C-alpha cells in the first residue's frame, strides 16, 4: 500500500461522490444513442426525464438516484489489510456529507444504524496482483435492479441457446422494475458464487470497450439486438430501447455444469475507480477487473 497525502478514506469519499453524481460518459452516450432511435412518445418522455436528471445531478452535485445502493468495492493490485477499515470509514463519512441514503439493515430485525455499515457491509472484493498500484473501484447497486438478479445452473446440453433463452427471459421478466434501459451483466461458468460475482464485475468495464473474445462479443451483440427488439422499452412502458449494453464474463466450470448468472443494472450504471500510484491518484469511471 502506497502512502499519499490524501488519505484512503478521503479517496473513498471522492469515489462515492463521483459515482453518485456523475454518470459515466460511455453510459451517457449510450442513452443518447437510445433516444435517437426511439420512436414511442412515452419512451421519449422517459429518456428525456433521465437525461434532464443526469444533468441536474451533476450540476447540483447531488446523487442522481435516491437509491444510492450498496457500494460494492473491488481492490486490485498492492494493498494491506488496513484498507478494509479505510473503506468502511470512507463509506460512513460519505453517508453523512454527500449525503447517501442509509440503506443497510439487519436482514431479520430490519434495524438500520444509519451509516451504511453493519455486518458484511460494504462488500469488498480483494484481487491481489503484482502491479505497482492500488486500484479501488466501486459499483453502486440499487435494490430495484439487484432484486432482479438470477442464477441458473443449466445443463451442458442446454448450450448457447439455453444461455441466450435464460438471459433474455430474465431481462424481460424483470420488466420495468430494474429501471431499464441499463447494462446487463452476464456471468457464465465458474462455481455458482463465482458466476454471480462475474455478472457484477462485467458491469465495471466501459460499455464502449469491446469484448476481446470473438464468440462472447457475438453473443453480446445477439442479446443486445434481441432484447432491444422485444418492445419492452424504458421503464417497461414500451419502446425500442430496453438495454444499453450486454457484457459477458466467463470462467472455466465443471464438465457437468453450465452456470449462468444475470445481473441487471438500471440506466444509472454508477461506477468509479481510483488508481493510486507513488505519484498520485487518478480517477476514472470504468475499470477492467
Amino acid at each position, binding site marked *: 500500500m502506497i502512502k499519499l497525502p490524501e488519505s484512503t478514506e478521503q479517496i473513498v469519499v471522492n469515489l462515492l461522490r463521483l459515482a453518485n453524481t456523475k454518470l459515466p460518459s460511455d453510459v451517457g452516450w449510450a442513452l443518447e444513442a437510445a433516444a435517437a432511435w426511439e420512436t414511442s412518445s412515452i419512451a421519449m418522455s422517459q429518456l428525456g426525464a433521465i437525461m434532464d436528471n443526469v444533468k441536474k445531478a451533476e450540476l447540483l452535485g447531488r446523487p442522481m438516484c435516491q*437509491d444510492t445502493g450498496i457500494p460494492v468495492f473491488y481492490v486490485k493490485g498492492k494493498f494491506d489489510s488496513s484498507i478494509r477499515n479505510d473503506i468502511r470509514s470512507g463509506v460512513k463519512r460519505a453517508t453523512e456529507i454527500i449525503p447517501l441514503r442509509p440503506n443497510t439493515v439487519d436482514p431479520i430485525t430490519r434495524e438500520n444504524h444509519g451509516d451504511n455499515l453493519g455486518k458484511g457491509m460494504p462488500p469488498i472484493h480483494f484481487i491481489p496482483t503484482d502491479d505497482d498500484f492500488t486500484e479501488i473501484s466501486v459499483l453502486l447497486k440499487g435494490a430495484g435492479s439487484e432484486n432482479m438478479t438470477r442464477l441458473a445452473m443449466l445443463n451442458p446440453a442446454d448450450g448457447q441457446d439455453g444461455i441466450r433463452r435464460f438471459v433474455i427471459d430474465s431481462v424481460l421478466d424483470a420488466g420495468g422494475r430494474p429501471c431499464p434501459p441499463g447494462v446487463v451483466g452476464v456471468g457464465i461458468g465458474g462455481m455458482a458464487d463465482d458466476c454471480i460475482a462475474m455478472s457484477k464485475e462485467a458491469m465495471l468495464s466501459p460499455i464502449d470497450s469491446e469484448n476481446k473474445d470473438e464468440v462472447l462479443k457475438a453473443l453480446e451483440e445477439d442479446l443486445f439486438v434481441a432484447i432491444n427488439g422485444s418492445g419492452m422499452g424504458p421503464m417497461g*412502458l414500451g419502446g425500442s430501447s430496453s438495454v444499453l449494453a450486454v457484457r459477458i464474463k466467463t470462467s472455466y466450470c465443471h464438465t457437468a455444469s453450465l452456470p449462468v448468472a444475470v445481473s441487471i443494472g438500471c440506466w444509472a450504471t454508477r461506477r468509479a475507480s481510483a488508481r493510486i500510484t507513488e505519484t498520485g491518484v487518478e480517477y476514472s469511471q470504468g475499470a477492467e477487473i
Partner: protein
Amino acid sequence: MKILSKPTEKDIRSLELGDVVYITGDVITGRDEMHMRALKYLREGKEVPSDIYNSILYHCGPIMSKKNGGWKVVAAGPTTSARMNSLESDMIRSFGLRAIIGKGGMSADVSAAMEEIGCVYLAATGGAAVSLAECLSADGAEWEDLGMAEAMWRFRAERLGPLVVAMDSCGNSLYENVRASLRRA
C-alpha cells in the same frame, strides 16, 4: 399540460392509459414498512395519520437533509411498486387512495382495487431523483422511527412529473399491454 391537484374520483376515472400528467398539491410517501404499519394500526384500531385518507401515495424513499430546522428533499425518485403488491389492495380500499405514483407497475388484484375505488397508477421515471426532488418541498414526516427511506413524508408537489398513466381505473395496464406483446426472440 394536464395538472392534477386534489383530484376527485371523477377526475381520476377520466384519465386514460398513456396520458402524461403532473401533480401540484399534497403527496405522501410510503414503502413496505409504512404500508405494513398503516394496515396494522387500522386492524388494531390505533390512530392512523389523517393524511393517508384519499391521498396521492408516492412509492418513494427519499434522501432528505435537515436545513435550518426544516427538511430539504435532496433526491426523491420512485421505488419498485411491485414490492407492495400484497399490501396495496387493502391500502386502496381502507384509505380510498386516489393515485399511486411508482415505477414498474402493480399486480392484477391491485388493479381490481383501483377499479373499484377509483384510483390510478402513475409511472414516474425511475432514477430521475434530482429532477423529481426539485418539484417537491417537505412538510415533515410521520413515523420517522422507520428510518429515512421508510418514513411517511408529507410533500408539497409543484408540477411533479412527467407521470404516465400506466394503470387506469378501468382495469387496464400499460405494463400488461407491453408484456402481452413482447417479442421473445
